């Protein structure tokens, strides 16, 4: 065979969902015994690619060659039988059964038709030792931490004589030491000539454990290369689709000029917030009338920061001040009452209540101020709803229309209106323009600018680098669950932000690349 060093070859894979091309002639080649990274931002197509490989999705076009044989898995079980195991972030094992039973499930050693428990345990122990773990395999799986549970899943993969193990964000809930244990077992897998496809959002991990890398963006393969021949900065710029040293043209967004804004008093001050394991050390502040951009790659901790400030998740250490006074929010309601609004990133999961009308969604947070002894003041509600439908240009047949029937952009406007009608002092917007069409995008950017002009402090979380550079008065960059760098208005540049997103002391490297 010509390409016998290749274990997996996915060629021209295309997958179309209604209205979206999830994969556009994507190619992925994985060699025998290598750890291959698959990276890309949200919606790049990584998961779709993996799901097609393992038979969870059926491809629309393209071929998959695994171990010199064209394959067409219809279910993940068939893929497993051929030697492809998948380990998801959420462990799909049985927590109440013992470690050994989990490893040997469906191929337990039997004697006279009964499970041979001694052999079962011995075999499980042997498999775990192989990846460097020595634990009591007779205890229930749930007695162990997530790292051990993942090792169990890996041992299970080995027990199936898997030739390939796919790991989808295995480290997202592990602490540093657990990650090290996981990497040790990955190295042992590699030594045994098993290939690993490794998906993560933590850049440092890629460089530590991976041999080669495939970068995806918008359903396409951008590049496949050796890990050693790419810098973190190049990697980030390729994931985001922004060339290094590209001259900033401006005008890609509809924000008003940040310099024209009147900056007021210090509204929010967050000092050294910690919320383990999601956030390690976060400090930032927002003034009245300014837009602060919060930048960072997926997994850097942006959404977690927003949630912690809004009282949706608890803070372990650190302090928050609102207009200088120390505050503590135990629930979103506390934050709302203090004049803060939060538009969540995932509109469908955290934003809309799909079976309620535009009206009811719009006034959901305002209700306590719209009622007298618990009864909704309909006249006043109608006035407010009509005002905001007109003001934001929400396209809906009537206020009674169910919100789920609206387009994404109009849903987003309703959610913005949910907070605007509260007259907030501080608004946290998490990816306010994601997943909506260009026209609506511009409108929303204008609305955000107007808010700042009216004196509202805006903390804007966005993955679109133009929104950061053109819309923000300041940009705070997060990396690996920490705020790492802050850019004032005159310092804001795409390269600088990307460098900070990739790694800290990279000013030199940027110059290197620019040369």
């Amino acid at each position, binding site marked *: 065979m010509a390409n016998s060093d290749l274990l997996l070859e996915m060629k021209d894979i295309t997958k179309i*969902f209604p209205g979206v091309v999830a994969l556009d002639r994507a190619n992925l080649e994985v060699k025998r015994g290598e750890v291959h990274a698959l990276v890309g931002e949200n919606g790049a197509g990584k998961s779709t690619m993996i799901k097609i490989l393992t038979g969870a999705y059926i491809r629309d076009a393209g071929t998959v060659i695994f171990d010199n044989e064209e394959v067409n898995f219809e279910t993940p079980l068939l893929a497993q039988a051929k030697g492809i195991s998948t380990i998801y972030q959420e462990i799909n094992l049985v927590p109440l059964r013992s470690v050994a039973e989990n490893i040997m499930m469906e191929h337990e050693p039997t004697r006279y038709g009964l499970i041979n428990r001694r052999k079962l345990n011995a075999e499980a122990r042997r498999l775990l030792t192989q990846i460097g773990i020595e634990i009591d395999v007779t205890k229930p799986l749930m007695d162990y931490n997530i790292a051990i549970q993942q090792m169990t899943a890996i041992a299970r993969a080995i027990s199936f004589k898997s030739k390939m193990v796919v790991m989808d964000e295995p480290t997202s809930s592990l602490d540093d030491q657990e990650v090290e244990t996981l990497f040790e077992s990955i190295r042992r897998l590699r030594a045994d000539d098993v290939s690993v496809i490794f998906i993560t959002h933590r850049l440092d991990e890629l460089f530590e454990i991976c041999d080669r890398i495939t970068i995806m963006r918008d359903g396409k393969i951008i590049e496949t290369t050796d890990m050693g021949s790419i810098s973190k900065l190049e990697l980030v710029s390729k994931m985001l689709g922004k060339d290094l040293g590209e001259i900033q043209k401006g005008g890609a967004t509809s924000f008003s000029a940040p310099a024209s804004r009147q900056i007021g008093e210090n509204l929010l001050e967050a000092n050294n917030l910690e919320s383990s394991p999601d956030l390690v050390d976060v400090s930032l502040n927002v003034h009245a009338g300014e837009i602060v951009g919060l930048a960072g790659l997926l997994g850097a901790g942006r959404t977690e920061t927003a949630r912690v400030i809004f009282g949706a998740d608890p803070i372990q250490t650190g302090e928050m001040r609102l207009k200088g006074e120390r505050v503590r929010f135990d*629930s*979103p309601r506390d934050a709302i009452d203090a004049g803060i609004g939060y538009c969540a990133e995932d509109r469908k999961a955290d934003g809309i209540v799909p*079976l309620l009308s535009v009206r*009811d969604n719009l006034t959901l947070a305002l209700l306590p101020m719209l009622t007298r002894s*618990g009864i*909704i003041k309909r006249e006043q509600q109608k006035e407010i709803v009509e005002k905001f439908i007109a003001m934001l240009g929400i396209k809906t047949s009537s206020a009674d229309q169910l919100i789920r029937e609206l387009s994404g952009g109009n849903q987003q406007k309703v959610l913005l209106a949910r907070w605007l009608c509260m007259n907030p002092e501080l608004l946290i917007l998490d990816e306010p323009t994601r997943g909506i069409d260009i026209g609506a995008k511009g409108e929303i950017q204008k609305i955000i600018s107007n808010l700042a002009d009216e004196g509202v402090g805006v903390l804007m979380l966005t993955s679109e680098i133009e929104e950061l550079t053109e819309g923000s008065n300041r940009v705070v960059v997060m990396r690996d669950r920490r705020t790492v760098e802050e850019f004032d208005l005159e310092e804001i540049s795409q390269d600088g932000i990307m460098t900070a997103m990739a790694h800290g002391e990279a000013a030199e490297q940027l110059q290197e690349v620019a040369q």
Partner: protein
Amino acid sequence: MTTSEQTAVKVERSNFGERFQKVRTYGMVIVLLLLVGFNIFRIYRVVSTNETIVENGNVTEAFVQALNSALNVNLTQVATIVIVAVGMTFVIATGGIDLSVGAIMAIAGQLAPLIFMGPIAERFGMAFANVLAIVVPIIIAGIFGLFNGLMVTKLKFQPIIATLIVFIGGRGIAQVLTNGYLQFFKNPDFQYIALGRPLGIPTQVYIMFIVVLVAWYVMRSTSFGQYVLAVGGNEKAARLAGVPVDKVKTAVYVISGALAGIAGLIVVAINSASDANLNGMLIELDAIAATAVGGTPLSGGQASILGTFLGALLIQMVKFTLLSIGVPYEFALVVNAGIILIAVYVQTKRTA
């Protein structure tokens, strides 16, 4: 293209579901009216062909009397189910379920005679004891609901498990209250809640209507009603919009418990006896069926109080009609199952 074909099919299906949904509300009313009409006709035939009545010449009088009694029988039988089903609708609208309503009915039913037959009546007089015998059991029933709610919100138990605990334990408590003995009594003042006939209509029917109307108003016009739907429709989003999710969830179980308490009192008042073994037995299933038939999806986020009322009436009328034309009870059960099946089928069509 396969994908476009698939979407086309999906769109067609959801239209089908929505069409069906509209048809269902009107359909329920039409079927109800047909059943009522059929029964009026049937009663008239029975009366007008009865020789004794015809000989006495009082056909009209006898017909009115027969109609009145048929109406009262149906409303009386359906009242407790409707009252419990209204509470169930609140719970189901938040995405929960309440299996404990029957057991809570039994507890409330045991408590009332204990109060008006006990030392309180002797010391403070019967009138006071009767008021306590109504108020205290309803409060205790609400406390059991509170216990359900706290298990669901604080201990994060699945609603079906949390309320199953009270389902099992509650009936035990009800039996322990009287050492398992039945309590027989004759207390016209207390029993007025079931046996009274203001304007010729049983008191419990008034109670039923009041419960339905208040619940309908609460769902429609109060922030609490909105919160119930928001919690059931998208709990995470509701929390981020400042909805006090835990309080709302707890409250619906308290409401369901208290309404079950009222129903439990009505049952013992009708029977002149309290039976911890039978009071409210299996009523949770009738209540869930009425809610489902009435168009409230078991996944939460939507609620139709009037639908639940119509659903309970429909199930009752079908049962009554079948039994009165001589269809065996067992067969009537099968027909009821069929109604629920159709109703839930329509529901899944719509949400799919």
